[in-house]
């Protein structure tokens, strides 16, 4: 076997120009695949991170009926504050749970006295929510501040920028929130605008607001909450921790993961992976054809050598091995160079701070980062090497079907 590897190695060096072309092709394709995968990987990481830490949490817990049907009256399926607090204590005992917090979802009409418009609000536990959304919340504030001292003064609100614009509201302005109470009557409370934020989604910006939980409960005349949001220590631990959470909660409440609550994530993931698969297939076919072309030329040029070896009784298996080694050397060298190239480009571009334009349906751009992993690099390198072997196997198998005399007389 060593002899065949030695011959293969020397042939790669002997036909160095052709080998350089083939190795370069494999290297370019490998680095392209790595960068594509790195980009997609970062996109999913960024998206999932935005979803979870942007407010959805890793999972949410609510009354089973809320997950399965619709409320006919406000907070019909709400959870009592006491029950929610007990559940939060139990949840936070789990080592994988970072924090759990109550939320109340409500809607109504916001008015500045002259202009009125609908809103979709979230009443939240400010201290915990700040920790959950720490970075994204601060980054999203475009004027004013986040909610502060909500225990002492719950009468404050954060408006999404579109809603603030509709209400012509500025920081420090008073606006009135009107909503239906759990008893069906209308209630109104005046609040001060503390901050204006960009949710990142233009449609949401037109209607969204955030208030302290106490204010939302006072507005709706209730002690209830809509759901409990659970944040885990690790973003990727959702699947692992889910069974433990199910064991903690009682039968009348149910849990939904962030990707169940944001089904578009899976759709986006499927679309991206479909595009990546098609692109990978095209690039791999190009790689296969390129190496196959080089190896076919090599096999044809060395047809007499093949015939000579056959005349000395060298088996077809060993001759195939020789050419497969040659393909493997080209494939391995190409993937090695391609991987290095991919890592260098990924590092340089990721450090450059280049911003991509906002994706469809979003109002903010995002940095161009390639998130490469060792696993993906190994898989792509392994795949490219196998492909190079296959690309070598095909022409030599075809050549070995010729009679020895035809191989010797091949011109």
């Amino acid at each position, binding site marked *: 076997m060593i002899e065949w590897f030695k011959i293969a190695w020397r042939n790669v060096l002997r036909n160095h120009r052709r080998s350089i072309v083939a190795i370069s092709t494999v290297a370019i394709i490998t680095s392209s695949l790595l960068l594509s995968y790195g980009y997609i990987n970062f996109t999913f990481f960024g998206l999932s991170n935005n979803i979870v830490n942007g407010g959805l949490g890793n999972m949410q817990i609510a009354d089973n009926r809320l997950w399965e049907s619709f409320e006919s009256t406000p907070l019909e399926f709400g959870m009592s504050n006491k029950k929610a607090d007990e559940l939060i204590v139990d949840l936070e005992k789990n080592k994988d749970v970072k924090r759990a917090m109550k939320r109340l979802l409500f809607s109504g009409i916001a008015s500045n006295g002259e202009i009125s418009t609908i809103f979709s609000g979230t009443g939240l536990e400010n201290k915990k929510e700040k920790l959950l959304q720490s970075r994204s919340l601060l980054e999203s504030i475009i004027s004013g501040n986040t909610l502060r001292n909500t225990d002492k003064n719950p009468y404050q609100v954060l408006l999404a920028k579109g809603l603030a614009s509709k209400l012509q509201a500025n920081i420090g302005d008073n606006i009135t929130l009107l909503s239906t109470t759990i008893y069906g009557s209308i209630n109104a409370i005046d609040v001060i605008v503390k901050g204006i934020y960009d949710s990142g989604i233009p449609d949401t910006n037109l209607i969204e607001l955030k208030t302290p939980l106490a204010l939302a409960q006072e507005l709706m005349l209730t002690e209830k909450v809509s759901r409990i949001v659970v944040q885990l220590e690790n973003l990727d631990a959702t699947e692992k921790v889910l069974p433990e959470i199910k064991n903690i909660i009682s039968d009348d409440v149910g849990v939904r993961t962030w990707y169940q609550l944001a089904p578009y994530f899976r759709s986006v993931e499927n679309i991206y992976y479909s595009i990546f698969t098609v692109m990978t297939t095209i690039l791999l076919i190009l790689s296969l054809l390129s190496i196959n072309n080089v190896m076919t030329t090599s096999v044809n040029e060395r047809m007499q050598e093949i015939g000579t070896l056959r005349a*000395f009784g060298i088996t077809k298996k060993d001759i195939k091995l020789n050419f497969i080694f040659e393909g493997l050397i080209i494939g391995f060298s190409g993937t090695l160079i391609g991987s290095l190239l991919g890592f260098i480009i990924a590092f340089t571009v990721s450090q450059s701070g280049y911003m991509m334009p906002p994706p469809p349906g979003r109002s903010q751009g995002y940095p161009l980062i390639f998130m490469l992993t060792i696993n993906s690099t190994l898989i792509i390198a392994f795949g490219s090497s196998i492909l190079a072997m296959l690309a070598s196997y095909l022409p030599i198998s075809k050549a070995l079907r010729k009679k020895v005399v035809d191989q010797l007389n091949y011109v």
Partner: protein
Amino acid sequence: MLIKLENISKVFNNGDISVTAVDEVDLEIDKYSFIAISGPSGSGKSTLLNIIGLIDTATTGKYYFDGNLVDHNNSNQINLLRSNDLGFIFQNFNLLPVLTATENLQISSLYSIKSSKERKEKAEHLLEQVGLIDKKDNFPNQLSGGQQQRVAIARALMRNAKLVLADEPTANLDSTTALNIIELMQKLNQDLGCVFLFSTHDEKLLNQVNTIIKIKDGRLVK
């Protein structure tokens, strides 16, 4: 007797046209022989050598090697004969360009001599016999035509072949080198006892050989 051919024919079919390259040849070759096959171009010399060397198959007829009937459908038997009993010297030398002279010899006996040390020793011994021990680490492109053919002769003898076939071994060499090559082959025939069977149409070389088989239009001429 080493070789016995009975009624061997080879017909090439090209569409509607059939060409009989070897026509009902009966031939017996004794051990230790040194034989030349002579004939004009297209007479069937190369085809006959290819059939005897088991790198081509006869259309009809029987072929016995060392008393055993050769079955062309038995690839194991063919591979064993090629790797143990047959040696080839080609007109274009056919040395592997990426291997040195010693390595070219060693690769041809990969199966018949298992120990790499023994292979190397034997290769160097044979290179000494053909007068090229000082060129043992040279690659083919660092050798002259005559030197390359000497390496090719040594390579043919690496596996203790009973029969060494050479198709026009001197065609690409000048007349002096060609004579030297034939003399070397004769010497090795006498020293090692293997049969040499080669084709040529060079009259000067034929004068050096005792046994000549003449062939014309695919038939042996008596």
